[in-house]
């Protein structure tokens, strides 16, 4: 189920919202949110609900065992067990065929047969949820909850189940503990406001740009240089409006049920360096990678050489997390190299004026998205080549896309994020949201498009 579908907007959300606020006790609300999370997830493929449940139960039980373990070694053992199980599931469903194909390249005679595996939607996200919970319990940052439904609510909360943000238990623990409180008008206003802003971003901007970008990239081999640039810039904007729109909707939905989901985007295309970009883009992932991968690897504490290795490993694995394709790995490494370069050069070179630094970062990020969007390294190389006029074809870009790009680039530089809006409870805001909602609904044109990050 997707947020911008009829079944979600007119059946799932209203019925769950009504039942949730009719329910009186915290436990009833946990059960409701858990069941609704599984209905939301199972609407795509009910069989994978069992996988979600299994993964959740493992981390729930292991977290309790960690808490009861008398020794640090015991806690560590249980933690590794849970992470191992979680990563094995993720590895099998997401990366098995990828590694088999790699093995086949190295040693055709020894590689196992590829399997017809369906990638469970959202598996990368909920695996990171469960891992962060177990690690936080083992580190003593959070107490394991003995309430199975509170935990299941955390993992299967429909608003962030399929494509994030990657919320840590401790970030919403307080709200979950007080789930039985009465609705707050400011929460409702923020919830509706965030949701409507996100919906507009998705259907009125991202999907409209996609109408031009997708056909261009379907014929990427014949793109002219201007068309290659328009496709790259168009996709840069499409991805931002799609994913940040989704994140805003997730935040809004959380607020409607009394759960404050943290910020995931902070005007990323205004970043003045690649490091700054990662503090603004998919913030829940970048902080997750920092806290659960980069810092445990040693972070920047073990000298410059090791820091660089840690950066590369973190960004490379971060790339691989997005998908079982070399394009993602190379994209992650590309960002790792850029971060390394910034560390090396940052202290030696004088800082650039902000507009130039912004433009430089934007350009580097756009080039990265070429890798990210490409279906293969060959496509990426071809596309990058066409950007500089190498083997460029004759396929032009529609003028309408140029206008979208101009407006979009201006918007990402000057229009505030949803988080910067002070959502108000005054009646005229309700009317403004209603107008926005109906306008966004008109842009849906009776269809619903899947969010780009659903594939991860």
């Amino acid at each position, binding site marked *: 189920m997707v947020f911008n579908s009829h079944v979600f907007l007119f059946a799932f959300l209203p019925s769950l919202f009504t039942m949730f606020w009719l329910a009186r006790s915290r436990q009833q609300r946990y059960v409701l949110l858990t069941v609704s999370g599984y209905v939301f997830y199972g609407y795509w493929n009910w069989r994978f609900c069992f996988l979600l449940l299994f993964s959740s139960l493992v981390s729930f039980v292991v977290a309790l065992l960690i808490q009861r373990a008398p020794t640090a070694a015991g806690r560590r053992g249980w933690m590794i067990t849970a992470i191992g199980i979680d990563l094995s599931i993720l590895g099998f469903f997401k990366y098995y065929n990828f590694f088999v194909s790699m093995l086949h390249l190295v040693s055709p005679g020894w590689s196992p047969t590829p399997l017809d595996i369906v990638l469970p939607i959202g598996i990368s996200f909920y695996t990171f949820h469960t891992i962060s919970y177990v690690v936080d319990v083992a580190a003593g940052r959070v107490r394991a909850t003995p309430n199975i439904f509170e935990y299941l609510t955390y993992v299967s909360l429909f608003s962030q189940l399929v494509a994030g943000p990657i919320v840590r238990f401790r970030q919403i623990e307080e709200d979950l503990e007080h789930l039985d409180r009465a*609705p707050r008008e400011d929460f*409702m206003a923020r919830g*509706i406001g965030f949701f409507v802003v996100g919906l507009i971003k998705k259907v009125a901007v991202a999907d409209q740009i996609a109408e031009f970008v997708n056909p261009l990239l*379907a014929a990427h081999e014949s793109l002219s240089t201007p068309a290659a640039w328009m496709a790259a810039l168009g996709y840069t904007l499409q991805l931002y409006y799609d994913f940040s729109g989704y994140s805003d909707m997730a935040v809004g939905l959380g607020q409607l049920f009394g759960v404050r989901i943290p910020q995931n985007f902070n005007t990323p295309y205004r970043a003045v360096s690649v490091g700054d970009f990662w503090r603004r883009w998919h913030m829940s992932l970048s902080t997750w990678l920092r806290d659960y991968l980069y810092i445990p690897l040693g972070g920047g504490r073990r000298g410059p050489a090791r820091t660089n290795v840690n950066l590369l490993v973190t960004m490379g694995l971060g790339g691989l997390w997005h998908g079982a394709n070399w394009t993602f790995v190379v994209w992650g490494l590309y960002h790792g190299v850029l971060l390394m370069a910034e560390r090396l050069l940052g202290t030696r070179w004088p800082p650039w004026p902000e507009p130039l630094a912004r433009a430089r970062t934007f350009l580097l990020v756009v080039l990265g998205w070429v890798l990210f969007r490409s279906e293969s390294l060959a496509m990426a190389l071809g596309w990058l080549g066409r950007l500089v006029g190498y083997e460029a074809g004759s396929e032009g870009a*529609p003028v309408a896309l140029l206008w979208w790009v101009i407006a979009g680039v201006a918007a990402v530089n000057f229009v505030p994020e949803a988080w910067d809006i002070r959502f108000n409870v005054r009646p005229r805001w309700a009317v403004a949201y209603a107008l926005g909602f109906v306008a966004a609904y*008109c842009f849906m*044109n*009776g269809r619903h498009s899947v969010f780009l990050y659903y594939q991860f």
Partner: protein
Amino acid sequence: MSLICGTATTGQGMRFVVLFLTAVAGVAVFLVGLARLVDPRDDFGTGVFPVVVSDARREKLEQFVIYNRERPVQGIVLGSSRSMKLRPRSLEAVFGLRFFNLSVDSARAEDYLALHRWVRRQGASIRVVIVGLDVEAFHDDDAPDSTLESNATLRTALEGRPLRRNERLIQAVRRYKSVFTTSYVGDMARSVGVRLSRIPSEARVSVFEADGYLRYPRWEGQRVAGTFDLEREIEECLPKYLRRFQGMTHLSARRRQALETLIAETDGARVIVWLTSIHPRTARYLEERTHYGDLLVETREYLEELHRSFGVGVHDYSEPTAYGGAPTGWYDCGHIDETNAARVATSLARDAS
């Protein structure tokens, strides 16, 4: 409201939600009211503002009744808007029969069947059925066009029974739902704009003559004024054609069955099927991005099969060279102009004799 406002505290918290939902309902009612007033597609028969989008299915049924009443129709042209330029008078000269062009927008195979059944119900004795077949008439999405769905007369003809109460209700809901789309809102704006500018000839992209023949007042006017830009028109409609073919991987068995049923129900009438063309640039564009090339091959093979199994006359005009089509004889991605339409008619006369 009482359902979600169980207590005073809950009620206070929900005040904003109730305000929002009330405002949404208000905006929706306003939009529906505006749609009923402007009525740009003639869905409600208001008639205050000009109709800017024709519903060929509804219009042509009304026209057929009048045309058939004047003198019985003996031949019909079925197909999509790509066949609408086939002039009945040209066919009359070839076949010696009175023709009506019953092609409708975005026709799929079930449209052909529904229209043919409806014509038979009118008591018309049809001796020649010419089907202008598009590849996408066999789209494997099996989803009927929305204007067929909302046309009770054609639905009844297709189903062979009157619509049930729930089906009529669903039809009404769909009609109102279609108001909440950017294309409908755009049509409303256009209708109001045309009314304010008082240039009626610019109002509709297309109008039908009494025999169902299509005219394009706007494009024809632009050609006369020398402002018509074919390249720009093609540029604009390419995404629409791409959407049409995206997701289509093979010919629908259900839709092939619909065409075969039509052929079986013609009671000895002569059936001629011609495969329509799209502009070569559109064809290239689709071949690069969709399965269009494979689908065209599959359609050609199917037509051969139809010829063998049913003795139907089939003519492959999917390449403009097959009927001597001029590269400039187009109005957009897939719609031929008068010149190319005349060449299609001449070729049909030659090949069908």
